[in-house]
């Protein structure tokens, strides 16, 4: 059996140096890792903060644009008001029709729904109901396409 005392002195010193080097390396590695994690954390946090401020800025910009949009919509609505249109029509020489002639077109397909829309009649059950906007649009689109199809089939 060989005891440590049996090692030559220079061997023991070499071993200690290796141990120290390894320790230093481990500590350095840990420090490097910690620094990396810290750097990553700080970078991310800083990036997050900058992005957050940017989002806030964009939200403020969005709000401002929405306000400007609302303003423009209001201006359009005012320009399209009934009183203004009437005044403009009269200035351009438009008049109410004195006589209206109706023409009967045999087999002209008029959908009951569109007729009701014109007359403002809703022939539905006397209950309250709720439906999605998408389904209303889909129904409207399907009705429009069907109406075009029907028109195309009318013989002149």
């Amino acid at each position, binding site marked *: 059996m060989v005891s440590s005392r049996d090692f030559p002195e220079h061997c023991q010193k070499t071993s200690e140096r290796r141990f120290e080097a390894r320790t230093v390396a481990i500590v350095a590695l840990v420090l490097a890792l910690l620094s990396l994690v810290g750097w990553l954390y700080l970078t991310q946090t800083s990036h997050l903060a900058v992005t957050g401020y940017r989002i806030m800025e964009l939200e403020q910009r969005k709000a401002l644009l929405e306000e400007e949009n609302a303003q423009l919509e209001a201006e359009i*609505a005012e320009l399209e*008001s009934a009183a203004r249109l009437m005044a403009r029509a009269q200035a351009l020489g438009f008049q109410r029709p004195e006589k209206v002639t109706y023409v009967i077109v045999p087999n002209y397909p008029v959908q009951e729904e569109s007729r009701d829309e014109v007359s*403002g009649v809703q022939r539905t059950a006397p209950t309250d109901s709720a439906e999605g906007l998408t389904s209303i649009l889909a129904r409207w689109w399907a009705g429009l396409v069907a109406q075009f199809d029907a028109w195309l089939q009318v013989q002149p």
Partner: protein
Amino acid sequence: MSVVADEKPRWRLIFLSAVLIGFVLVLIGQLVRWQIVEHDRFREMAAKEHQQARILTPRRGSIVDRNGRPLAMNVVTYEVSAAPNLITDPYLAADRLWSLLGRPRDELISVLSQDVPYVLLARGVPMATGEAIMAWGLSGINLEPSPRRFYPEGKLAAHVLGFVNAVGQGFYGVEGFYNDLLEGEEGVLHGELDPWGEIIPIGESRWSPPREGRSLVLTIDRDVQFMVEQELAAAIERYQAQSGTVIVMDPNTGAILAMASYPAYDPNTFYEVEDERLFTDPASGDHYEPGSVFKVITLAAGLDAGLITPDTPFFDSGSIEVGGRVIQNWDRRGHGNVTMTDVLVLSLNTGAAHVSTSLGAEQFHTYVRRFGFGLRTDVELAGEVPGTVRVPGDPEWHESDLGTNAFGQGLAVTPLQMITAVSAVANHGLLPRPYVVAQIIDQERVISTRPYLQQAISPEAAQQMTEMMVAVVERGARLAAVPGYRIAGKTGTAQMPIPGGYDPNSTIASFVGFAPADDPQFIVLVKIVKPQTSPWGSEVAAPVFKRIAEQLFLMMNIPPDNVRQQAMAVDR
């Protein structure tokens, strides 16, 4: 060797210790106060310093007509104020501001030259103007944005819409009725503040989003409303009347297409109105004695009860006594042997009183209630009134009421109740509930209002009544007739009650009619108050109905009866 202690240093030590202990005790006491006793207060103070709860104001819902045309929307305006004591050159500031703010230059110079910290210069300044002022960067001039309700059509449908005050509260009309739905619910953003007072994006925060106000789609048609308002204003001028109301409704559903009253106000400048009574909607919030138009209800009740038919004979002596009161015809004449159709065409008070007394007080008033009188219609307008109908058992009821009520005296109804009741005649006896809101839009969800109907009289009685009303237009109120169309209608000339009786010089001229008689698409009520050129409904209100009906036939694409019947025959 003995050591003699110096007494003075010991006392100094004791004194110093006592001072230090006292100081420490004060510190401990203060710490206890800060950390325990007033912990919550200081915590709150700290939170206030570093945290903020920002109220997120929801956007008020918009209001559009049945075709999506905007009637009420939101805009941002600016409140412009000044801190005159910070303004170095009031002349320069006044030169730039006076034309934009619409204030005289000299007045503005004197205002800006004062030594005061705050002066309000203008409210409701348009966004573009406000931004232009901001771009100049005038020191001492401040601009504060504030949302404002905007009504792009001005006075149009003012009584239906109502208005919104400076703090966002809706009053009258749908703005008042649906205020809770329109204004939405506030949200809140709790967060930590940075040194510039902005919320730190990555700080601790809680966010409760605002619920945006719901939008309303009305049954009102902007173009029909405009046309009706023009015709009403022209009629008021033509007949030199005091005021008036016109309602256009779909009798099949109760959807109100137009509801106009004159005089009206501009909801954009509601604060300029001096008489607040102008805000009340005369169509639903004010009542009147309807006069002979009410004979439609009396005779319809008689038909439904099987008491009369259109041809039932009646001898008109010119007067009839009910409850001790003698009732006479409007022309003070007796017309001899007539039918019930003649009673309506000639508008005989005696014939109507004969029917109501034959029905009896209980049955007559059951029908009156069934037609909705004395009850709110539940239209979605703030300030609706139920009218006044005295019934047997009421302390004020008198037996003679049975006779006078038959021709529309001694009771008070709203124009909306009147047109709704006659709608039942047009709609196979089904009484609709009038409504002005077709849809409520809640972000992606659309809630549609569906008509609610209840049977007031039988379809057969309604059909007979319709024919009797057609006879009124064909033989009596010819000024309401539109060539090519069968129209059912009835005139009314009501006296105006004053303390102790009726005003001999004032009347309310009215007409209610629907068309086409065989397939009614619209019903119109015209009410003109205190016309000066003629007191009669047949001469004042009937022509207004005609002008409106002529345009409605075109706008609603309703061809003349013969064209419609030919088209139906071709379709078959």
